[in-house]
């Protein structure tokens, strides 16, 4: 209940909080640019040299290795731009002007490739700007060092700092680049596609064009949309909450159970869920679909017992199918939540439990007051991402009950999630741009929910205080 009070209190304070933030912006900006101002006013001739050509200042300071490294970056960047970068950047706006004709071996412009390389060139520009700024800052730092210490920092010392104070910069460099190219780039691509007409007949070699907000207009003006959307959205939320809670608490419970002192052969008991985890998901889904089909084993035994076949996943099986979906999803996901909980629990301070037992607390109380807050704190972000994962769980109902349109739903069945519906309407049809636009709408909704929960959660605000 305290949480509810906190949330309502926050909402009440929202308007004044927002106003305060707005008022603070000018001074914040001034603060951010204070550093830049300092460099611009105080920088000496060598800093100026670095501003003109990267690495020049460092070379003048006789920092040969660093100087040549920056110079190399400068040259590489120019080469990149002359070779492909400039063309790619322009291509981002034109999306191709020449249509190819494979019959005559005429190579035209592939619009989507141009979109991708265009985004890549924008990323590279950002990377360049960051390196340029670091180059200037570094020259200025050397200047300060020379002013105070009478000599520039040695290369060895700088490398040492990279492993110590600036360790995060070294360690994060590769992951950030990797994530940028292979996770962020596709997402930016998808967002931009929503503003083009890519899809259906407009696929390479045909040229794709920018159409602005037309796709969104098309979606929002559809009358048949609203009833189906709200029905599916309601079910989707219910599903996400139920499945996440079920998987999380069952996994936690299982981990706790297996942690008990009286359990012998822990590794063996844990191996069963791991076995379930090891078998690929799509195989188990197909297996369960078969198991519950009219011709499957469960109905076989029912018939042997003299009963009538039950349509677990059939046309009318709205709630049975939903319930089955929950169960199958739990079967697939609980092993990994169990593993996760086991890992997190391994660091629990057992002294706390001792103290609680001495004070006479029952195991249930121990769970609520010690274990639960601890685990929740460590895993709130995970909980959120699992919620989102379940919200967008395409596979479960696609494999279990795909290929069905139910009355009262526009191109969907009563177990479809928003993402299945999205697939039916657009991707199945190859209407990529519409699919991208709808994805953005779904994303807008889910992101508002998750960000609010995340920012309000203790793991975000009080990371230090838990210890």
């Amino acid at each position, binding site marked *: 209940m305290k949480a509810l009070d906190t949330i309502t209190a926050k909402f009440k304070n929202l308007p004044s909080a927002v106003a305060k933030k707005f008022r603070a912006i000018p001074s914040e900006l001034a603060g951010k640019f204070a550093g830049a101002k300092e*460099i*611009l006013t105080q*920088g000496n*001739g060598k*800093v*100026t040299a670095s*501003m*003109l050509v990267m690495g020049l200042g460092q070379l003048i300071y006789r920092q040969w290795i660093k100087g040549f490294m920056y110079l190399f970056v400068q040259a590489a960047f*120019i080469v990149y*731009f002359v070779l492909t*970068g*400039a*063309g790619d*950047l*322009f291509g981002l706006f*034109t999306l191709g*002007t*020449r249509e190819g*004709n*494979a*019959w*005559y*071996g*005429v190579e035209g*412009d*592939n619009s989507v490739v141009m979109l991708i390389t265009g985004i890549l060139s924008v990323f590279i520009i950002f990377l360049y700007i960051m390196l*340029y700024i670091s180059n200037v800052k570094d020259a200025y730092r050397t200047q300060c060092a020379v002013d105070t210490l009478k000599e520039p920092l040695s290369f060895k010392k700088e490398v040492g700092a990279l492993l110590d104070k600036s360790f995060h910069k070294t360690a994060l460099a590769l992951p950030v680049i990797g994530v940028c190219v292979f996770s962020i780039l596709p997402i930016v691509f998808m967002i931009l596609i929503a503003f083009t*007409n890519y899809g*259906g*007949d407009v*696929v*390479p*070699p*045909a040229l794709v064009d920018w159409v602005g907000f037309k796709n969104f207009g*098309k979606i929002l003006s*559809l009358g*048949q949309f609203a009833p189906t959307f709200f029905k599916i959205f309601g079910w989707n939320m219910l599903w996400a909450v139920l499945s996440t809670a079920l998987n999380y608490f069952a996994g936690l419970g299982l981990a706790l159970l297996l942690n008990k002192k009286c359990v012998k052969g822990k590794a063996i008991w844990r191996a069963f869920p791991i076995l379930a985890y090891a078998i690929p998901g799509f195989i188990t889904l197909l297996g369960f679909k078969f198991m519950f*089909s*009219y*011709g*499957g084993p469960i109905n076989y035994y029912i018939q042997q017992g003299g009963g009538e*076949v039950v*349509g677990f*996943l*059939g*046309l*009318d099986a709205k709630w049975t199918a939903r319930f089955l979906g929950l169960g199958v999803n739990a079967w697939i996901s609980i092993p990994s939540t169990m593993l996760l909980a086991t890992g997190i629990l391994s660091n629990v301070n057992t002294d706390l439990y001792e103290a609680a037992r001495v004070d006479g607390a029952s195991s249930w109380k121990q769970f609520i007051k010690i274990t639960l807050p601890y685990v929740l704190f460590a895993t709130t972000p995970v909980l959120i991402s699992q919620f989102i994962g379940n919200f967008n769980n395409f596979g479960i109902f696609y494999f279990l009950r795909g*290929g*069905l*349109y*139910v009355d009262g739903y526009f*191109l969907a069945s009563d177990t479809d999630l928003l993402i299945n519906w999205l697939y*039916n*309407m*657009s991707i*199945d*049809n*190859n*209407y990529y741009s*519409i699919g991208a636009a709808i994805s953005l709408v779904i994303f807008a909704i889910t992101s508002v929910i998750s960000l609010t929960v995340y920012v309000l959660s203790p793991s975000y605000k009080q990371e230090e205080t838990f210890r």
Partner: protein
Amino acid sequence: MRKTLPALIAHIALILAVIITVGVLGVIAAGVSAEGSEKFTDELERNVTLHILENDTAKEQGYLKELLDAFNSEYAEYGIKAVDANIDQYNDLEQSGPFGYGPDVLYQANDALMKYVDGKHILPLPVDKIECAEELSEAAFKAYRSTVGGQEYTFGVPVNIQQPLLFYRKDLIPENWETEWDDDKNGVPDMIEYWTDMYRFSKQIKKDSNNSKYGYMKSLNDGYFASGYFFSYGGYVFGGEDGKDTSDIGFSKNDGYLGGKIIRQLASVMNLECTEDTITRNSYSRMAKGDYFATMTTPDVYTLFIKEMVNAGYTEEYARANLIMTDIPSLPVSGDLEDESQGFKDMVAMGGVNGYAISSYTKAPNASLAFVNFATSYKMINRRAELLGISPARRDLAEELGGLNEKINQNLDSGSIYVMPSVRALAQVWTPLQTFCATLADDVLNEKDVYVTDEKLKDGIRNVDNQIYAAIHTLGGS
């Protein structure tokens, strides 16, 4: 700020200048159009490797190896080598071709191949250089023609015609069939010839065995096979002259709704498994065990039936002698399986024509053409028919092989085969259609009895058309 700010600005200006200059030059250069060249000269390329994409059955049964070996030995002097592309038989040339990962020659169904025409991913073929052109069935060849920019081109060479066939157990036909089950006294059991008798026979089997054995069994929600019932009564998929007009969905047109009636009646002699794909999967073993009498499927799975029969304890000779593939039965004109009074008509079933096409991205179009000619020669198609049991599109061979092969050829000519249209939107047809068929089966087997009147059936199938239309057009188009 004395010198620093100007330096900063100079740097930025320099970079921008480079970008804009190169970019603008690039745009101008793109405007200059490049010249194409004629692909099919008479010069065979030398020392090239051709990647051939064939279907899995050809590979499994060893035909592909024979074909490749024969071609390679014949064209060894030119240094032309044909190899198996070793990629997925349903590989999408649109995705793989432009980037250089596609095959040179590909064998796929006509609806798959003709979809590549819009993007110009397959080459228009010079008809005068196609050696077997004269021998090919005109209807089959037509499936590979299309009009682009006002001119008609041919894009592929048909190899075989595919249609659904009736598979049945000859040894399960009652011994007294000549007296009981041959009303027209033509020496062929009626339940093989007419759906009405198949229906009657199935009812009998189901009753006599107390629901443990069945006659005709088929997953009715399989749209590919169920669609035929609608076509037989005047329905169609897409309208327009070329069958590609997606604004005109035709399952409910003319008397198409009678197809729904037939499906509902057929469902009554089956069990609830016909509403899902269970029967598609278990028909092999059930027919081998004798629990099912007949089913309808495509000829490429014939070997699976034989294998299951061998598993069930029969010898292979016995299996081949008693598991028969034949043309599908005829439907009653009345649209009611219990009413033979108006006579019979041929069933129209969905089918297709498989053939070879040449990728536009091949580096050796002439060698590829030579391969296609070699592969569609009398000798090779004959061998293909021998090994794979296909029905050739070559008239001369079809006549020579006779029997079912010839009949299928004639079916294509007479319009009893509805060739699958090569329209992308076809993907949207299946779900509404199969939901409706499953609903009809569910209606009769769970005794809901909603679709018992013609009006209800008409409404139902019209709803299917509307759903298909909505699925295609609501969000698509400009």
